[in-house]
């Protein structure tokens, strides 16, 4: 947007040069370029998916083949023994459930609390809303890593270490989520609320049956980001839990790397990794359009 004027000026300077018309040579290079793009993309895609393929194949491959040299990428036989090794070391089902509950509850509460706050900031004209919004934007810059020590002390003083409350409540609402929703809510036409208010709807009715149904893309985007971010988070659950029966999976698996004597049990780690990524990969493949549009949405605000 901003730069169209300056770039069109530059194009104008280009135009003053002698114009050339594309001949057969140009067409040849265009065809060449078009075919050059595909190998480039194939390299990108292959390198990108290589670690994921290694996890999937390694998880079903006998440990002896995982540890062989030269490496065999595709195992000679498929086995589930790595999963037996995994369940012997880590309560993987329980920790998957912990991850689901942790990420799910954070997401649900963020959906409720953030959208309520975003509604007030976007649609109610009250005194002080600009002040509150400005303070929130300043807070948004604060990285949570910088607050780990005092948050841990607070959670510990409340007796919430190793509990769902300790994992979830400090994250029950967040400024980035409020900001994303608020930016979306202000774009909805005002006439929608006015019409409902004429019909006697109160604030909560307008919020629930007018604003929320019209903000589904933003709500879904926020929910996906929160779910994925918390499911995958390592540092937070590592600090807030020490008991392996309440630990989410990501933090539980991280301890596998330290538990091995000598050579790390790679096959077992691949099996654990597979368990950790399958739910999100499936979710991603189902709603990937929403994911990708959501990322574009977060990029727009700059």
């Amino acid at each position, binding site marked *: 947007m901003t730069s169209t004027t300056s770039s*069109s000026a530059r194009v104008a300077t280009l135009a003053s040069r002698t114009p050339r018309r594309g001949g057969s040579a140009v067409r040849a290079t265009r065809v060449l370029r078009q075919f050059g793009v595909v190998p480039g*993309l194939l390299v*990108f895609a292959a390198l990108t998916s290589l670690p*994921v393929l290694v*996890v999937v194949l390694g998880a079903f491959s006998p440990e002896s083949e995982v540890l062989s040299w030269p490496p065999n990428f595709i195992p000679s036989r498929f086995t589930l023994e790595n999963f037996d090794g995994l369940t012997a070391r880590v309560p993987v089902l329980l920790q998957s459930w912990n991850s689901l509950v942790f990420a799910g509850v954070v997401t649900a509460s963020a959906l409720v609390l953030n959208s309520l706050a975003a509604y007030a900031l976007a649609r*109610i004209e009250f005194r002080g809303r600009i002040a509150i919004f400005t303070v929130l934007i300043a*807070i948004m810059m604060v990285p949570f890593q910088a*607050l780990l020590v005092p948050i841990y002390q607070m959670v510990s003083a409340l007796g919430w270490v190793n509990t769902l409350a300790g994992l979830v409540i400090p994250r029950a609402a967040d400024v980035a989520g409020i900001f994303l929703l608020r930016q979306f809510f202000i774009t909805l036409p005002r006439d929608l609320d006015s019409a409902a208010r004429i019909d006697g709807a109160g*604030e909560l009715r307008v919020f629930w049956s007018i604003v929320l149904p019209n903000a589904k893309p933003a709500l879904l985007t926020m929910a996906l980001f929160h779910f994925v971010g918390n499911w995958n988070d390592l540092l937070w659950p590592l600090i807030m839990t020490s008991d392996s029966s309440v630990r989410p999976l990501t933090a539980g698996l991280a301890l596998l790397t330290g538990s091995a004597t000598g050579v790390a049990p790679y096959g077992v780690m691949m099996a654990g990794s597979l368990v950790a990524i399958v739910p999100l990969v499936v979710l991603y493949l189902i709603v990937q359009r929403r994911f990708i549009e959501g990322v574009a949405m977060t990029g727009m605000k700059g």
Partner: protein
Amino acid sequence: MTSTTAGPTYRAPRRLGGGGPRPDNSRQIASRERGRTLRATAFLIPALAVIVAFVLIPAILALRLSFTDASGFGEASWIGLDNYVSVFSDPATVRAIVNTMLYAAMYGPLVIAVGLGAALLLNRKDVPLRGFFRTIIFLPFVISMAVASLAWGFLLDPNLGLIPYWLGGLGIRMGDVFASTTWALPAVTAVAIWKSFGYFMVIFLAGLQGIPRYLYEAAILDGAGAWRQFRAVTLPGLRSTMTFVIVFAIIGAFQAFDQIYIMTQGGPDRATETIVYRIYTDGFRDFRMGFASALSYVLLAITLLLGLIQLRVGTKREKDLE
């Protein structure tokens, strides 16, 4: 959509004093305003309570802690600026700060270059299987850094990994990158780049879509080649995307932790220790919570500074537009 049913004649006044048909008296205005403030407060309180309790108060507590020798046990005593003096005089801590900056200096430009490269390839309408490629390239975004670290650690293992094996086939001998003080930091950076370049690609794709086609057509008409089109049309067209992305990438780089915790534990010889890794080890392994809080405030200051730069550039851009 539904607004058509209301019709313009029945529209409620947007703001008080907006010249509605019946004049409000001042008491009514005041009571209505109070009502709105009350309702807004009710909507805001749950979220604000969480944010005050778990962001604002901890920020103040961290500042207080940073002036003490708190260990997490027993009484802490006030030691003034000692922790901050140690942060900037202890060679190991300075090294962690320098490592973080080196990490950011590698991560920022590379993740942007690779993301932009992928976006340029995928933005061409004539490319077959665009959807497929986009799906694959964005996939690492949903893979946890912990899993990515395990997978890359395996792929790069000099005794087991495919990458040393393939490079060996090309006649390149690769040692253990994670045992090398030179290569360990670039290696943990590379994992982060792998994980997030798809994210930047998507943001760039959105930016590229905003560049009007006629600019390219005009440039082609003038005989501009691919490189010249990129310099004269694409890059200027992406300027606003670029400022967002650069600051975003650098702020993210200053929070590096996961892959270091899993792949190198800060080693070898502290070569991959970063600020957040030190906050974790000082605060939660060595129980130097006062010192970790001082380091936290250094991180906070760097992040706020970067955020301010972004805000500055952003507002300047808006002014340029007017």
